[in-house]
C-alpha cells in the first residue's frame, strides 16, 4: 500500500493549479450558472489537454491508464477551484459504466475533450444541456430522455429532469457509482481546503477592535478545528481510492467513509467560513457564497450522508470488527 501522493501526482496537481489559477474560474462558474457555457467549455478543453478527461478511459480509447488515486488528486483540485460541469459523470463514472457496452468508444471522445456526458444516478441529470448523451439508471443502464430544467439550489450545478429512454446495457457496474462517490468526496475535500484558505486570508487582513481578527483565539481555534476535520478526511479519501484500485471487499465501505468525512469537513469549513466572515459571506456577490452553496449540494449528491452512514453501519453489524492492519 502506498500512502500519500507520488511525485507524479504532486506534479499533476501543480499543473492543474497553474492552469486553473490563471483561468478566473469563479467568473467561468458564474457564467455557467447563468447558462453561458462558452468559457466553461473552453476551460474543459484546456483541461482535457492535461489528460484529466482520460484518466480512467481504456488505453485503446485514449486513456492514460491512471488509478483512482490519480482521479482523487485531480478532483480535489477541480473542487478547490470550483470548476463547473459534469466532471464526475464524464470522467469518473462513464468509464466503468460504458466499458462493456457498445458505446465504449464514447470514452475516447471524452478523453480527447471532444464531448462530455451526464449521468442521472438519482433522478436528475447535471448539466444535461451541454452533454452529448445523458445516461439514466433503471434496473439496467439506459439513455435518458432529458426533460425540463429544475432550478438548482447551487446555481452552478444545473439540474434536469430525466425519464428512461432505450436500454444501453443490461447491468450497471457498481464500481461506476463508487468512483463517482470517490470523485465527489475528493471535490468536497478540495472545496473545504479552498474555504479554509480563503478564510485564513480574510482573517489576516480584516481588523476588529484594532486587531486582525485572526489574532483572536476563538477565531484561531475555529479554524484549527476545520484543519483537523480536513486532515481527518484526507487519508480516508486517499484510502478509498487505493481500495477501489485494489478491488478490496471493504472498498464500498471505505468510499462511504470518505464521502461522509469529506462532506462533514467541507460543511464545517463552510459553516465556519460564514461564521468568521459575518454578513458579507452571506451575499451572492461575494465568492464565498458560491462555495457554501456548492458544498451543501455536493454533500447531498452521490448518496446522502444518511445513505452512506447506513452502508458503513451495515458492514459493522454484519461482519463485526475491521481487523487492525
Amino acid at each position: 500500500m502506498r500512502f500519500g501522493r507520488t511525485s507524479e501526482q504532486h506534479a499533476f496537481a501543480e499543473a492543474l493549479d497553474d492552469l486553473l489559477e490563471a483561468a478566473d474560474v469563479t467568473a467561468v462558474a458564474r457564467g455557467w450558472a447563468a447558462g453561458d457555457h462558452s468559457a466553461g467549455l473552453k476551460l474543459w478543453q484546456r483541461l482535457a489537454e492535461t489528460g484529466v478527461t482520460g484518466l480512467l478511459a481504456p488505453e485503446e480509447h485514449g486513456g492514460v491508464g491512471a488509478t483512482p488515486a490519480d482521479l482523487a488528486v485531480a478532483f480535489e483540485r477541480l473542487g478547490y477551484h470550483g470548476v463547473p460541469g459534469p466532471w464526475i459523470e464524464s470522467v469518473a463514472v462513464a468509464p466503468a459504466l460504458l466499458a462493456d457496452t457498445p458505446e465504449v468508444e464514447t470514452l475516447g471522445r471524452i478523453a480527447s475533450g471532444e464531448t462530455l456526458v451526464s449521468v442521472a444516478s438519482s433522478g436528475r441529470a447535471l448539466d444535461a444541456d451541454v452533454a452529448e448523451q445523458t445516461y439514466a439508471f433503471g434496473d439496467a443502464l439506459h439513455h435518458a430522455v432529458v426533460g425540463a430544467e429544475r432550478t438548482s439550489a447551487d446555481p452552478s450545478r444545473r439540474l434536469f429532469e430525466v425519464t428512461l429512454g432505450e436500454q444501453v446495457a443490461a447491468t450497471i457496474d457498481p464500481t461506476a457509482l463508487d468512483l463517482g462517490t470517490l470523485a465527489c468526496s475528493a471535490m468536497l475535500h478540495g472545496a473545504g481546503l479552498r474555504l479554509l484558505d480563503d478564510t485564513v486570508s480574510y482573517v489576516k487582513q480584516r481588523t476588529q477592535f484594532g486587531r486582525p481578527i485572526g489574532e483572536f483565539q476563538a477565531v484561531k481555534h475555529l479554524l484549527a478545528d476545520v484543519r483537523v476535520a480536513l486532515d481527518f478526511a484526507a487519508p480516508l479519501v486517499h484510502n478509498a481510492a487505493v481500495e477501489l484500485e485494489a478491488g478490496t471487499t471493504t472498498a464500498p465501505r471505505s468510499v462511504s467513509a470518505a464521502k461522509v468525512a469529506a462532506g462533514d469537513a467541507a460543511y464545517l469549513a463552510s459553516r465556519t467560513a460564514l461564521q468568521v466572515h459575518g454578513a458579507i459571506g452571506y451575499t451572492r456577490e461575494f465568492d464565498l457564497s458560491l462555495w457554501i452553496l456548492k458544498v451543501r449540494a455536493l454533500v447531498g449528491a452521490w448518496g446522502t450522508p444518511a445513505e452512506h452512514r447506513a452502508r458503513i453501519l451495515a458492514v459493522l453489524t454484519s461482519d463485526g470488527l475491521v481487523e487492525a492492519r
Partner: protein
Amino acid sequence: MIDVDLTYSAEDEAFRAEVRAWLADHLVGEWAALRGTGGNGRDHESYEGRLAWNRYLAEHGWTCLGWPEEHGGRGLPLFQQVIFHEEYARADAPVRVNHLGEELLGPTLIAHGTTAQQERFLPRIVAADELWCQGYSEPGAGSDLAGVRTRARLKGDQWVVDGQKVWTSNAHLSDWCFVVCRTDAGSSRHHGLSYLLVPMDQPGVEVRPIQQLTGTSEFNEVFFDGAVTGADMVVGEPGDGWKVAMATLGFERGVSTIGQQVGFARELETVEEAARANGTIDDPGIAVRLSQAHVGLEVLRLHALRTLSAYDSGSEGPEASVSKLLWARWHRDLGELAMDVVGLAGLTTGDDYALDRLQSLFLFSRADTIYGGSDEIQRNIIAERVLGLPREPRPQEPRREARA
C-alpha cells in the same frame, strides 16, 4: 436568574380569547390568502397585501400594544403582549411590515424624543402609515458602532449627511431611516455620534439591494450623498448618539420574540411532517434529532419568557446572551436536520430559485449565529459579564474626548 410567575389571570385568559376570536373572525376572505406569508427571507411575499393588513390591524387597535396610551398604544402589560404574539403566530397571520417602527424607533422616541418628534412620528407608526429602517452598520465596521464613519454636519437649519450604511433591512420599502452619524468630525470611538431621523425619499439617498445567497435581497446598502434632514431631527442631544442607539438595541429583544418561538414550533412541525411523509422518521438518527429539537424548543420558550421578564423589570442583562446562543444554535440545527430529512429533494428549488419552507429555513438559519451579535460575541459577554472573567487586554488606542 430572574423568576417569572406564569400563572395567567382570568383577565389574561379573557384577553387571549379576545385575540383568538378577533383573528378567527377577521383573518378571512381576501386576508386569509395572506396566511403564512412574510418572515425571514420572504419579506417580498405579498408585501402590499401585508401592508394593507398591517393597517387593518391598526384600525382595530392591534398595533403598539405595549406603548403607553398617551402615545397611541394600549398600555397592555407584558403577559398580554406575549399572549397577542402567541395567538398571532398560532393563527399563521401574515408577518407584519412595521416591526422596526413599533419595536425599535417608537420606544426610543417615547424615551428620548422631543414632544414635537413624538407628535410628528408616533401616530404614523401606530397607524402603519410610515415605515422605518435602521442605519447602524457600515462596511468595515460591522456591528461595531464605535467604527461609524458616516458624517453629518449642521448647515443652517439642516443636517447634511454623507456616508454609507449597509445591511439595512427593507430600506427600499421604508419612508424614514434612523441613522447613527458622526457629528463631531474629530471624534473617535463612541464619542461624537448623533442619532438622526432622515427621510428616505430624497435625491441624496440611494438604496442598492444586496442579493443574498438565498437569492432574495431584503438587505440593502444605503448611500447618503448630501442627504438632508431638519436640525430638529436629532434624537437626544447631538453627541448622545451612542447612548440613544444602545437604548434602541435594548428594545430590540421585545415581546414579539415570543412569536418567534411559535414560528419555530411550526417549522419543527413542518420538518416532522416531511420526515413522516418520506419515511426518514424511521431512521433512528433523524428521530433522535427530532426529539432533541422538541426538548430544545421547550427550553427556548422558557428562556424567552425569562428574558422578557427581565426586560420588563428593567434589568435586562447578559442572560439574553444565553438565549441568543441557544436559539441560534437550535434554529441552525433544525435547518440542517431539515436538509437531512429532505435529502435529494433539497438539491432543487422552485422556479426562479423559489425556496420552499425547509430550504428557506436551512439557508436563513445559517445567518442566525451571526446577526444580532455573533456566537463569539455572546460567549465573550457570558464569560465577562456573567462569569466575571477578566477582559482581554486591548491595544491602546488614541482617544479624544467629545467636544459636544
